[in-house]
């Protein structure tokens, strides 16, 4: 009684087997947008390019056939678009990226309701991770109120969904796109573009 709590300190019995911590390779920034007004969306794309540099992929605006709470906030007729960016990003910066895109959502909101929803994620050779402000059992806390959601895992030649992966991130077109971006990422990690 009265003794101060002593945290247990784990000491590796074989120091020689300890791996040296190392930063993972930079990742490709992939951002998905939901919007109704294409003018607002184009402005969001412009603001994001000012921060993160030029896009190197943009999908045509497509319909968003899922009912979510965005319908209530933005009204019906929601469309979506996916963009990827040429400059690779350090994996540690995911929370900063999410805070920057949250700020753009806020700047473009009207009468307190969002006009564009911006979901940034990071594509590495191993996985696709989304940033989110919402806590949930399978999400890992990063910092500044931002969690990481392991959305797709690369296994046996393709990115594959997990039980919690949202339906729009399971679509074959999206997964195909990530496969192509992964090939490009590998070129970029060697400091080049395909065919150069």
């Amino acid at each position, binding site marked *: 009684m009265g003794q101060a709590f002593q945290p247990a300190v784990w000491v590796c019995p074989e120091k020689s087997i300890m791996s040296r911590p190392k930063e993972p390779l930079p990742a490709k920034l992939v951002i998905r947008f939901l919007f109704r007004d294409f003018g607002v969306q184009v402005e969001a794309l412009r603001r994001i390019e000012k921060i993160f540099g030029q896009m190197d992929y*943009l999908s045509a605006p497509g319909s968003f056939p899922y009912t979510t709470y965005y319908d209530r906030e933005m009204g019906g007729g929601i469309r979506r678009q996916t963009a990827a960016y040429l400059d690779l990003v350090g994996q540690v910066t995911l929370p900063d990226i999410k805070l920057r895109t949250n700020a753009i959502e806020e700047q473009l909101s009207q009468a307190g309701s969002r006009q564009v929803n911006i979901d940034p994620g990071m594509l590495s050779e191993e996985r696709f991770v989304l940033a989110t402000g919402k806590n949930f059992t399978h999400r890992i806390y990063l910092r500044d109120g931002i969690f990481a959601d392991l959305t797709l895992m690369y296994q046996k030649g393709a990115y594959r969904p997990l039980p919690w992966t949202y339906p729009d991130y399971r679509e074959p*077109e999206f997964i195909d796109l990530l496969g*192509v971006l992964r090939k490009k990422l590998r070129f970029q990690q060697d400091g080049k573009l*395909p065919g*150069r």
Partner: protein
Amino acid sequence: MAISKELLEILACPKCKGPVEPDENMTALICRQCRLAYEIREDIPIMLIDEAKPLD
């Protein structure tokens, strides 16, 4: 693995945000609006304005 036709059909031009279409040999994606050709190299479309070639 060659790039899928479905994927090529959902891409947009990074300049005008409008549609692009593959050329007959599937070697480039063409934006008629901007009159630019975005090459497909090693099965990867290079959707960069700086790398695009102007159409004659």
